[in-house]
């Protein structure tokens, strides 16, 4: 059986039996296999890279994982709903640009404490509003036209990037107030503030996706949007909510980016776009939608970052890291497929014969 881009996954094609099983067990390999892989990687690097098992490595690990992590969270929500948001980097960059520009334009040279805080607050509110607007428009376009999310967000990505590049002429906006970057790079209880922001966002998103009606609706839409609609759920409003959530996470990412780069540009972090999809799928998020947990994503992100940190200390090129990331994704998905198909064979034998109704 071939696999169309957004068609039913291999398991979904086998009907209700596999669906309930997946609801119960999730993807087995990602539940057990990934933490084992992570542990093996950490132990391996600790054994063979002299400076790996130090506090310094761990701190730089926490600094670096925050940005990719937040952007991946922004990608996971649409992925679970069966869509994709290709505009996350563009959204985050535009929000960072707006905030940087506002801070620069509004801040008098000799601003005191209260003014400074007020301006930063105003910039943050403006960035949040911009992201809400982008998310709302993207979601509305997807929900009300029914155009494939890949196409809509391809369009919005080009549009948002275009506006950013047009307004800045491709330049970098720097001159962020020192206190902003200093807060971003500060540590609390030995952990970088940006890392704590990321963890907080992940926990909140995890609760929203796992424990609220909205989260359930998102997963249902990802599994079968038509059935969800017939269950008296306003799928359009939920879809708008999905892309608003994704954009708000982009806003959080933009704060971290602004603090990390100490400047804003339309061109930052562009190479992260496809890596976020890679991380999500590695973390057990079903690219067809319906299934995925924030916990799985966190383990996947840790794996990617450990490889990156380890290779970095070995003095290996960044390109090799990305290549290994790609290979790991292929290997993990292959392992999941083999695991699943073996399981399915047993399941089908148990059911004697699949009923005609469960055939696609």
């Amino acid at each position, binding site marked *: 059986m071939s696999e169309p881009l957004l068609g039913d*996954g291999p398991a979904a094609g086998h009907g209700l039996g596999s669906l309930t099983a997946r609801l119960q067990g999730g993807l087995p390999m990602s539940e057990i296999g990934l933490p084992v892989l992570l542990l093996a990687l950490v132990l391996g690097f600790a054994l063979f890279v002299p400076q790996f098992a130090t506090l310094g490595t761990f701190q730089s690990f926490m600094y670096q994982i925050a940005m990719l992590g937040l952007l991946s969270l922004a990608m996971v929500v649409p992925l679970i709903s069966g869509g994709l948001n290709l505009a996350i980097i563009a959204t985050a960059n535009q929000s960072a640009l707006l905030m940087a520009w506002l801070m620069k334009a509004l801040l008098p040279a000799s601003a005191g404490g209260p003014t400074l805080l007020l301006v930063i607050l105003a910039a943050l509110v403006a960035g949040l509003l911009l992201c809400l607007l982008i998310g709302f428009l993207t979601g509305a376009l997807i929900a*009300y036209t029914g155009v494939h999310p890949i196409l809509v967000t391809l369009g919005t990505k080009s549009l*948002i990037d275009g506006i950013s590049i047009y307004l800045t*002429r491709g330049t970098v906006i720097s001159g962020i107030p020192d206190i902003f970057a200093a807060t971003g790079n500060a540590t609390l209880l030995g952990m970088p503030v940006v890392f704590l922001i990321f963890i907080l966002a992940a926990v909140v998103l995890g609760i929203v996706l796992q424990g609220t009606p909205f989260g359930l609706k998102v997963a249902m839409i990802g599994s079968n*949007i*038509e059935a969800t609609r017939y269950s008296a759920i306003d799928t359009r409003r939920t879809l708008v909510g999905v892309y608003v959530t994704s954009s708000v996470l982009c806003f959080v990412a933009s704060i971290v980016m602004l603090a990390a780069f100490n400047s804003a540009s339309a061109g930052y972090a562009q190479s992260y776009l496809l890596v976020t999809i890679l991380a999500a799928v590695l973390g057990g998020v079903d690219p067809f939608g319906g299934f995925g947990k924030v916990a799985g994503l966190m383990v996947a992100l840790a794996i990617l970052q450990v490889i990156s940190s380890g290779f970095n200390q070995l003095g290996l090129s960044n390109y090799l890291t*990305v*290549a290994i990331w790609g*290979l790991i994704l292929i290997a993990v998905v*292959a392992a999941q497929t083999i695991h699943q198909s073996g399981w399915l064979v047993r399941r089908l034998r148990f059911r004697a014969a699949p009923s005609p109704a469960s055939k696609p």
Partner: protein
Amino acid sequence: MHEQSTFLSRLQRRPEAWLLAVILLAGLALSLASPTFLTLPNIVDLLESYAVQAIMALGLFVVLVSGGIDISFAATASVAQYVAAAMAAYAGLPPLVCIGAGLLIGVALGLLNAALIHYVRITSIIATIATMSVYFSFLMYVTGGRSIYNLPDWWTDRITFYETETTSGDLVRITLPIVALLVAALLTWLLMTRSKVGRQLYAMGGNPEAARRIGINIAGMQFFAYGFLGFMSAAAGLLQAHRVGESVPNALYGNELAVLSAAVLGGASLTGGIGTVPGVLLGIVLLAMLQNGLNLLGVSSYFFQIVIGLVILISTSITVLSARQRRRRRPIGEALNV
């Protein structure tokens, strides 16, 4: 109202029709605004500079029709181009060997994608995002990002098939990229409309399960589609080195979404089974015209991306909204018609 819906459904049957209308309209406006736009030298120039992207779009179109997607073709083109360039520049191998090796590498990388998608059952977009990372990153790692400047003359010498001088004294040359584009378009068109394989690809993209049950070899079709895209990408990569006279490992990388936009603008559907060669060519023409026209009008090139974004959003919305009039019987199309 009724009249409008029949009009829209006719548009849906032929997305190329309204694309052509938009192109003619834009062409008219641009030629009125800028006298240099509708001149032969400018048009031939445009054709030449967009030939590489157009050839990739034709390959991608075949994969899109088969119901898949491929993000890795630019990486494939880069690898094929660089290996061929290294063989020619460092080993001094004869032209046929270098070109053959480049094309073979393209096909092999395409077949590898197909194997991952068909046998390992990784979704096409995920598989090709992964292989794109692997192909391109290994290329950059192995080459250290070094360009090859000393390509042999047989590769970089301009090949002119036809040459004429316009009344205004401009030289108009029909060069190799243009001829290659025409050959590629003709080949793809023949393949998709006049061959058994083409009809089977459309059938598979429309409904893979139905296609399997009427005895179409799904595996074979997958390998063919991705192999074909690999071949076209490699050809485009070799051609790009011919145009610019050097092989830069990351020159083609980053073109993926622009090429995808062109194919989709031309009416190829991401859900498969739909699309025509003229449509894909028109999609490229529209993008090329907009960019060139805006340049000639003195509009900042920074503005171009905004226009592309708007064109994608508007054209896809119109296509899908009009398709709603006559819902196609396909699970994905239905699921998306919220």
